[in-house]
């Protein structure tokens, strides 16, 4: 669809009272990207694109529960509670971008989101109005698609260089292995992109692996950008990829770096973070002297910054969504050596409103060409809306669980609570590329194990604590493991080791001593790597090819306790 046709469609839809608020008109689309310049220091930020080069659909969660201090606060608001908090008009394009509401219909109206050729157009426009603006990449860029996996991240590296990324930090990048990361940083990025992380040190002598920060002068203003990689990479992902590196939050070292860059004369200090929003909020309350945190990891599309007061003044905390869906614009007015004022916008990238940049489009087509036939293989047609996000399960995860149980003959299946992966609309054909969007990792092995009931409980408790520990520094930022076959109850306010109860299989209580056949994938151990189970994408693709049509899967969700009235849950 061309842009003009799309605008006409919006106007027609509005006139017909169909779906959209009558006040919505194509003019709204024009205004969306009308972002007047402000101040003298501008930073553009994207994060967690998960290698989605082309426009996609991506449904935001209807379950994103906050506990303890995070209860009912951004980013733990969904649906109408989120619209109300951020004063977004129901039915508007932005309401569609930031919420799951009416997703299927709204996605058909507003079309796909993201795509690097469309993002390039927006970046070029913003750069034209903001001389000196820097482009920051928060990480999770080299993983998440078939082509990123098959080229070991090279397609994304080439695209980011063309896009003009200036500074980057990382998380999933490390699952390509330490030597590949070093190779890209030292060869491809040399002289062009600064790769920074204050919280990665060697395991032997605690030596820094990457520079902690970079100083840049923007329109005469000295600005420090500090990097924070995902603190728990060797725990959430296989440690064998980075055996000689240690991560962690290291907020005392963060304070040292902030003090150091202030002493060097930085008038503005910005943290490019892959902590996850809850960790960033806590860090902002403890570390003095950071003006803004441009955050990612938890994939929260948060329309406005949360302002945290601390001993050094205040820190803006932002999170810029995922899958290439958003571009953040932070404008700072720096006067008398400090940040006097700011403006922040998180712009949804509607591919129908932003024409593709010709050069970037050509580069992406060139990079994808060798793989096109394999990517395009049609596997099945989906009857229902298939999505992944949500604290406990998504319909797409359910398809993976069903495939694991059926193909592997298991009575229970586990699938990791990954927050990346594109959405498939009802009636859409599922291609091999879609399957790779959900499974493209460097440790894709499927596993089948005999596990005791006690072991299953230990695993669920352990993962629940990563999500619902009241202290964000003890969370890892993924979602709860998706469970197929077995039902359970989860008390989200329970103490560690006491959140999971009433585990049942086929209605019968799980026996602590009995052994059950459990299928899973994405194991983090070296033993599982050496065993070399069948890649998850093969299992899922085989299942889809055999089924040809996929009915709306029945979501296996736990019974929840302690979540009543929580505005992090709807629907």
């Amino acid at each position, binding site marked *: 669809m061309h842009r003009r046709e799309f605008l006409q469609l919006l106007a027609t839809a509005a006139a017909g009272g169909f779906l959209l608020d009558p006040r919505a008109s194509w003019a709204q689309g024009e205004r969306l990207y009308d972002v007047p310049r402000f101040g003298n220091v501008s930073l553009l930020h994207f994060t967690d694109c998960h290698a989605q080069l082309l426009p996609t659909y991506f449904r935001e969660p209807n379950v994103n529960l906050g506990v303890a201090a995070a209860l009912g606060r951004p980013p733990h608001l969904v649906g109408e509670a989120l619209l109300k908090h951020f004063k977004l008009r129901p039915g508007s394009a932005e309401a569609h971008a930031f919420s799951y509401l009416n997703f299927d219909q709204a996605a058909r109206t507003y079309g796909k989101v993201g795509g690097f050729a469309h993002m390039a157009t927006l970046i070029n426009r913003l750069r034209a109005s903001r001389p000196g603006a820097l482009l920051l990449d928060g990480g999770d860029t080299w993983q998440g698609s078939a082509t990123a996996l098959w080229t070991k991240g090279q397609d994304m590296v080439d695209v980011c260089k063309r896009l003009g990324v200036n500074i980057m930090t990382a998380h999933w990048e490390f699952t390509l292995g330490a030597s590949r990361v070093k190779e890209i940083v030292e060869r491809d990025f040399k002289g062009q992109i600064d790769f920074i992380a204050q919280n990665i040190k060697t395991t032997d002598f605690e030596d820094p692996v990457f520079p902690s920060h970079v100083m840049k002068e923007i329109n005469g203003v000295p600005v420090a950008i500090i990097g924070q990689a995902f603190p728990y990479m060797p725990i959430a992902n296989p440690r064998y990829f980075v055996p000689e590196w240690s991560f962690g939050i290291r907020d005392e070292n963060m304070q040292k770096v902030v003090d150091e860059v202030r002493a060097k004369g930085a008038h503005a200090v910005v943290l490019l973070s892959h902590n996850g929003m809850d960790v960033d909020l806590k860090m902002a309350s403890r570390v003095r002297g950071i003006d803004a945190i441009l955050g990612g990891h938890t994939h929260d599309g948060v329309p406005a910054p949360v302002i945290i007061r601390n001993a050094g003044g205040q820190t803006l905390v932002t999170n810029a969504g995922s899958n290439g869906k958003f571009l953040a614009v932070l404008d700072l007015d720096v006067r008398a050596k400090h940040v006097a004022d700011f403006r922040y916008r998180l712009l949804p990238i509607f591919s129908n409103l932003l024409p593709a940049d010709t050069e970037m489009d050509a580069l992406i087509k060139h990079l994808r060409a060798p793989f096109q036939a394999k990517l395009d293989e049609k596997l099945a047609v989906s009857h229902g809306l298939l999505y992944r996000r949500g604290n406990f399960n998504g319909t797409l995860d359910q398809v993976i669980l069903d495939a694991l149980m059926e193909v592997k003959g298991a009575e229970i299946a586990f699938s990791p*609570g990954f927050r990346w992966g594109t959405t498939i609309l009802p009636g859409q054909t599922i291609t091999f590329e879609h399957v790779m969007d959900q499974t493209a990792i460097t440790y894709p092995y499927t596993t089948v194990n005999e596990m005791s009931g006690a072991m299953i409980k230990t695993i669920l408790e352990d993962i629940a604590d990563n999500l619902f520990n009241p202290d964000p520094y003890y969370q890892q930022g993924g979602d709860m493991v998706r469970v197929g076959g077995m039902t359970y109850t989860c008390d989200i306010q329970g103490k560690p080791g006491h959140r999971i109860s009433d585990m049942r299989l086929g209605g019968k209580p799980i026996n602590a001593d009995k052994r059950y056949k459990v299928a899973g994938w994405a194991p983090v151990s070296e033993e599982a790597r050496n*065993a070399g189970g069948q890649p998850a994408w093969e299992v899922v693709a085989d299942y889809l090819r055999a089924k040809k049509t996929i009915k709306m899967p029945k979501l296996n969700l736990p019974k929840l306790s302690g979540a009543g009235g929580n505005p992090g849950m709807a629907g």
Partner: protein
Amino acid sequence: MEEMIAGRRRFLQSGSATTVFGLFVAAGLIRPEAAFAQAGWNKDAFASKSLNDVVKALGGAGATPTNDISWGATPEIAENGAVVPINVTSRIPNTQSIAVLVEKNPNALAAKFDFPAGTDPTVSTRVKIGQSSNVHALIKTADGKYFVATREVKVTIGGCGG
């Protein structure tokens, strides 16, 4: 995932039985007592099961909670329970010794370091932590007072993040 856990257990078992410490003794000025096992080994303290028992075995009456320490590179979640870096710097004046306790280990006291007068009270060591546990830094001052700071260190199965 089961193999994953079994792997971690095997790895933990392959470490030494109760205490691993003193890999990075700062500046060579600190005297880890274990290095003088025959001479200065406080058997009762190292066999104690709780913070209170350790304080008693060391000759104190009780420990006052304090925030006047830095935990440095001590993690919130361990990357490897078999070798968890513990980094403690005391800002309490006249710090004479720093002990590291892992509450849920079979024997709580993992290491104790004495500081000659005029030495910066900083220690970096590594301990084995069998399961998620509070780690205590127990500080003794020259006038015989005890202070304690606590950091929870989680030991997790891993996986499923992001």
